């Protein structure tokens, strides 16, 4: 039996550089295997563009396994496309219908400037992490393994927060372009663990203030971030960030 193929019409945001004016370009992708991933579909489109001597569509990707957080753009108004708990590299063409028109846009936020086409600069996230999303470790002899006991429930919770891959979908989907879910997840992860506790007071202030200085918006508790997060990180992490901040406001140091 012949393999069923599909055709989709794309409207893709093209922008040659950060300072240039962007616009939508239309492409038609034909003879697609429904089991190819969305990025593989774009690879096919790009092959054709390259053969035709045109500039291929720039987009980020690395692992293509949904674990690295490099990929991501907005498909028909949904970060990473329509499926929940999925990165765009793990989205398959079978989630679309033959003949669909698909609008593809980069993450849009002041703090994520477009570099080219669908590629945005997410250094702002790195700067939020550098501001406090770490545990300082002194040099010297290594501590005994298991010398710090952590309950399974606590480690599970911290792990849920640590699952963040930093893709930026939370910012992209938030009507306020807030980075609260990203920042809250790291603050929560480290605040739960004994290794993170000594620095928790200064960590939360520095990270929250860095998030503000980067120009991200303020959380209105809408929760679309959780709905688009490929790791389904809960906005409970944002509530925890608020408690940590309140604690820091009241602390002596």
């Amino acid at each position, binding site marked *: 039996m012949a393999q069923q193929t599909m055709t989709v019409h794309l*409207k893709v*945001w093209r922008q040659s550089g950060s300072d240039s004016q962007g616009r*939508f370009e239309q492409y038609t992708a034909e003879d697609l295997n429904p089991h190819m991933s969305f990025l593989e579909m774009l690879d096919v489109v790009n092959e054709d563009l390259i053969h035709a001597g045109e500039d291929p569509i720039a987009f980020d990707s690395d692992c293509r396994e949904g674990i690295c957080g490099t990929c991501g753009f*907005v498909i*028909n*108004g*949904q970060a990473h496309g*329509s499926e*929940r708990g999925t990165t765009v590299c793990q989205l398959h063409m079978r989630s679309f219908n033959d003949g669909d028109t698909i*609008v593809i*846009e980069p993450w*849009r*936020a*002041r*703090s994520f400037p477009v570099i080219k086409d669908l590629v945005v600069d997410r250094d702002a996230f790195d700067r939020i992490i550098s501001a406090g999303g770490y545990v300082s470790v002194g040099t010297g002899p290594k501590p005994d393994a298991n010398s710090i006991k952590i309950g399974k429930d606590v480690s599970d919770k911290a792990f849920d927060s640590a699952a963040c891959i930093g893709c930026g979908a939370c910012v992209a*989907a938030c*009507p*306020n*372009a*807030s980075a*609260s879910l990203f920042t809250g997840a790291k603050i929560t992860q480290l605040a739960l663990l004994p290794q993170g506790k000594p620095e928790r007071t200064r960590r939360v*202030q520095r990270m*929250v*203030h860095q*998030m*503000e200085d980067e*120009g*991200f*918006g*303020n*959380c*209105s*508790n*809408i*929760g*679309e971030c*959780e*709905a*688009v997060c490929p790791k389904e990180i*809960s*906005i*409970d992490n*944002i*509530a*925890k*960030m*608020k*408690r940590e*901040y*309140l604690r*820091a*406001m009241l*602390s*002596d*140091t």
Partner: protein
Amino acid sequence: MIPLKRALSSPVGRKFVMSISGIALVLFVIVHLLGNLTLYVPDGGETFNRYAAGFDAIGPALYVIELGLLAVIVIHIGWGITTALKNRKARPDDYAVSVNSKGGPSNLSLASKNMIVTGVALGIFLVVHIWHFRIRKIYVADNTEIDGQQHADLYALVHTAFSDPFWVAFYVGAMVFFGFHLRHGFWSTLQSLGAMKPEWSKGIYALGFLVAVVLTVGFMGIPLYIYFLA
């Protein structure tokens, strides 16, 4: 320790301000409705006027309370507007296809997306409402005798206003905005404070709907009741 000024303008601290002022406003609004339920008593306004006259007994302290309330409103509006402006600036170039909710845990809705719109509408309503019944109580209302003492006939003021279809429509319309504001605000205020657990979240969001409906219907019924039945 975080310098207070920095804290209260930070993304987290500014929502503490919104939240605490929001809770104060909700508490006020509940008390306000409880008092106004006397308008539903079909006795030509005697119960209501008696209740309203009770405020005169508070004396000058009433002004302190009123100024406090005004301050809460001004703070809520001030922080609400600056927050909304910052949020707008955070996405200067908007999407061609606007955010299309993935559902699930999301609370993206007409109510949650438009807090600033419903808020500004409420602000305009408040100016009219305070002029309408608070300022005009001083300058326009006639007097009535309650237990041998002269008090403003607030009921007559209310009754005249709500005999006019324009004012009935205005108040009913304003309460729609109020309902939408509370629908998201009730839950949001607790989440903003960090006073939320994932297990409670759905229940409190549902409770927010109930609170919004009960308060909205309670207030909205007053002009309708007076226009059609009193």
